[in-house]
């Protein structure tokens, strides 16, 4: 068994006043042990909801999440509690995900206490210090509170807490977006080191394509709740197929003066995810859109080499 996680046709709909909001619409993918899957997309495309649905922090509407060979979407609370230590999450903003009234050691010890891992406090304190060493947090901070620390150190607490119960899968929801570049580089290096050491699988949710390229083995690009392109990282950047991914790549400001890239500026903004009609959701902003795109939703199909994309005219656009 090579796969740690298989997601099949996962859907999460929310009932809102205007109708049904399709936050995650029919998403499928697999993740292997010790590898990183990047989920990229703009705000509102459903990437965070996807992460939470997989951990069952929100209950999926339909579909399967098969974690280590077992569908977890329908299991009861008791079984779920038993599974939680294996799947953890790191949140975007460490300030709002940490309890401001708990010291660093209490924050890190909390999961250990909930799961009664240690009989006595001395063992637990030892483990907390070990975890602090693992994430590179100096031991002198053990009794400090989150407000006394900077963003990078706070995020290290978040990482230590996620690691406390020796998980196999960590969903990282924009873990470096709130950090400065130098700190961002430190945290990314830390996550990579931990992955090598503990064989962790990461689901890495971000809007930053250069970060996701750096850290991921595979990438899913999401647009309005759907995966529109999915393949190996190298393949995605070498051979971008979907017009949205192309526009996304060309929109990133590159810190270099020698680049004369063709800029595709997308018109308009994300359409509403409430009761979308049967059409390509990107069509209103797409420069290649034809009549078919507005009347029929494209399926995610493999165009060769395990490179999947959802576009009616992918062959014509890319001259395949």
């Amino acid at each position, binding site marked *: 068994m090579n796969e740690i996680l298989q997601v099949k046709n996962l859907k999460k709909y929310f009932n809102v006043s205007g109708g049904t909001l399709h936050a995650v619409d029919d998403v499928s993918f697999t993740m292997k042990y010790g590898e990183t899957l990047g989920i990229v997309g703009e705000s509102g495309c459903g990437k965070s909801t996807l992460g939470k649905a997989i951990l069952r922090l929100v209950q999926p509407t339909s579909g399967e999440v098969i974690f280590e060979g077992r569908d977890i979407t329908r299991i009861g609370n008791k079984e779920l509690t038993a599974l939680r230590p294996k799947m953890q999450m790191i949140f975007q903003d460490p300030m709002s995900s940490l309890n401001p009234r708990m010291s660093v050691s209490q924050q890190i010890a909390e999961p250990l206490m909930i799961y009664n891992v240690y009989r006595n406090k001395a063992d637990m304190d030892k483990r907390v210090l070990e975890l602090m060493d693992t994430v590179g947090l100096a031991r002198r901070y053990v009794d400090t509170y989150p407000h006394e620390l900077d963003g990078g150190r706070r995020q290290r607490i978040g990482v230590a807490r996620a690691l406390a119960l020796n998980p196999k899968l960590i969903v990282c929801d924009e873990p470096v977006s709130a950090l400065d*570049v130098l700190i*961002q580089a*430190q945290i990314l290096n830390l996550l990579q080191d931990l992955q090598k050491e503990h064989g962790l699988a990461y689901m890495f949710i971000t809007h930053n394509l250069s970060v996701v390229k750096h850290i991921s083995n595979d990438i899913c690009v999401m647009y309005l709740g759907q995966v529109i392109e999915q393949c190996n990282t190298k393949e995605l950047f070498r051979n971008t197929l979907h017009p949205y991914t192309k526009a996304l790549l060309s929109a990133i400001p590159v810190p270099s003066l020698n680049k004369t890239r063709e*800029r595709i500026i997308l018109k308009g903004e994300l359409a509403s995810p409430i009761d979308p009609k049967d059409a390509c959701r990107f069509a209103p902003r797409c420069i290649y859109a034809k009549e078919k795109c507005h009347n029929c939703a494209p399926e995610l199909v493999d165009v060769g080499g395990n490179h999947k994309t959802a576009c009616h005219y992918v062959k014509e656009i890319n001259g395949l």
Partner: protein
Amino acid sequence: MSEKVLEVKNLIVHYETQDGVAEAVNDVSFSISAGETLGLVGETGAGKTTIALTIMGLLPKPAGCVISGEVLIDGRNITETSRNRAKQRKNDRMMRRLRGNDVSMIFQDPMSALNPVMRVGDQISEVIRLHSSASRAVATQKAMEMMELVGIPGVRFKDYPHEFSGGMKQRIVIAMALACNPRVLIADEPTTALDVTIQAQVLELMNDLKRQFNTSLLMITHDLGVVAEMCDKCAVIYAGQMVEHGTVEHIFNNAQHPYTQALFSALPSLDKDVDRLKSISGLMSDPMDLPPYCTFYERCDARCHRCMELDPPLTESEPGHFVKCVHFMKDNGAPSPKEGAAAAEASL
């Protein structure tokens, strides 16, 4: 070069708090000519926003005080360093006339920059009516024109901010800032809160408008990609000091200060494959407790004994390119940065 529209000379700004004095801006000087864009780059807490607020005369009172230095707009000094109440009030009155008219600012988060209970059209025409004798009808007309200019249909004049998306709100803020055709526009992280595709739209809009109105732009950002796209000159700020200053070609093709180099190497690249990012350890010095020597010493790869002995001045290393580093001082008695790095490695 044409005349200088904005000039900042030896600006020193402190925040006086109960816990002590935070030296937020320490001796920063730069100038912007008409139609030129200067990028101000640095980490959180480096003092970028404080510089912007000082230019706008919006420093939080009473904590923030301009200790010394001058900010000149079209050659006219607009800072008041005196603690005399009457003088400060007079300066405040003058600033109220200047703000929005000669110099205006775009803030990072458009939602908190707009008044949520006021129609966007009224918010734009308010600026026009405050700074000109235009009648309500004329101001409304002008506000609609401004909205069309930034790509928002004039019929949305009567909508409230919450009815717009983030990108559109930022466009409204830009329309507001440019309504009186200011000489200087300060943009404080204008696209940080936006998605990349929307960011691309907003940056293009700003570039167009800048050219159209010949506005000078001070662009504050932590994104070097945005600087490469928008700016003519670039200044790197570290712990309230300017550590490197030059044209974008100088900074991007020949970064000389170790901090600037570290910033570039910490960025994951889209073109190259790197296994591990290069990062420097440690944190920026606390502005409450700045060392008397080079502020970057603790984190520097190229440090040597001389770095701890003096606070290096900003030195011109090549025409128009300034670096604040011992290694670029003339007759400094220090080894070149490369030798310095080798020595530092050997000592480890």
